[in-house]
C-alpha cells in the first residue's frame, strides 16, 4: 500500500473518535490527533487497537508512542505492513 492509500483509509479509523469532520476530510501528515482532530487522549489506545485490527498488524509500545499525528501513524502502519 502507498502512504496515500494508508492516509486515506485512516480516516475511517479516526472517524468514530472525532467530531471535526471537516478537518478529518482534509487530513495531512501534519494533522495532530489531539489538537487538530480534537480526539480525546483517552481514545488514542482505541485508535491503535483499531489500526491493528484493520491492517492485521501488531503495534508495539515504542511505535505506539510515536502515533501523535497522521504522518507518524502512516509511517508506523507502513513499516509494520512491510514487516509482515
Amino acid at each position, binding site marked *: 500500500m502507498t502512504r496515500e492509500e494508508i492516509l486515506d483509509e485512516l480516516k475511517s479509523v479516526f472517524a468514530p473518535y472525532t*467530531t471535526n469532520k471537516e478537518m478529518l476530510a482534509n487530513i495531512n501528515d501534519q494533522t495532530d490527533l489531539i*489538537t487538530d482532530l*480534537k480526539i*480525546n*487522549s*483517552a481514545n488514542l*489506545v*482505541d485508535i*491503535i*487497537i483499531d489500526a*491493528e485490527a484493520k491492517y492485521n498488524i501488531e503495534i508495539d*509500545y515504542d511505535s*505506539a*508512542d*510515536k502515533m*501523535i499525528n497522521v504522518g507518524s501513524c502512516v509511517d508506523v502502519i507502513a513499516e509494520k505492513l512491510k514487516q509482515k
Partner: protein
Amino acid sequence: MSGIGNDVVALLAIDVDRTIQYRFYSKIIVDSEKLIYDQSLASSLPFEYFVWLAWSIKESAYKCLQRYQHDLVFSPSNTLISEVNLPGIFHATPSEGIGFDGAPVCKAKVNIGHHQFYAITVLNKEFIFSIVSNNNNFADTYWGIKKIGSAEREDQSLEVRNLLFQKLHDLYPADQFRIEKSIFGFPVLLRNGTDSDIPVSFAHHDHFVGYAFVLGS
C-alpha cells in the same frame, strides 16, 4: 517549584469489554502494574477501573513534566506506577477542595525515567480524577471537578475555564485572570495581563471537566 498535571476519565464513556482485553490494557499498563493489581487490588476494584486509574495517573504525570520538558512524548509504558494505596471505590466524593486532608482518595507514586511524582486520585462510580505533582505535599493544591451538560470539546473547554475562574474570583476578587496556551500546548494562567507563575492543568472527558492549580509554588 511545584508542577501539576491532572486528568479525568468518565467511567460511563469507557468500553469495559475492550478495556479488559489484553490487547488493549497492555498498551496502558505493564507487567509490574498488573502484578500490583493482582496482589493487592483485585478484591476491591474492577480491573477496568484499575486500567483507567493507571491511565489517568500516567497522563497527569506526563502533563506535569511536559510543562518543563517540552519535547516529552506521552508513553504509558515508560511511565511507571508503584505503591498504590486505594482504600476502595467511594460512593460520595467531594467535587472541589484544597489539598486532600480527610478526603477518601487513592495515593500512588509514579515515575517517568528518574523523575518521581506523587499522585492523588478521587475515584467513584462516575469518574476517575487524578492530580500528579512532583511535591508530595498537596496542601496548596486547589482542585475542582464538574459534570456538564455537553460533551462537545468547545463546551468542555469553556466550562472548565469558567470553573477555574470562579474559584480564582473567590480567592482574588480584585484580579483579572485569563488563560493562554503556550506554544508547547500547556495552559498559562495570566493574572492582570502577566504570567501568574501559578501552574494550572485542565482535563476533560465526556461530561466531566476538572482543573488543578498550585499556589505558593
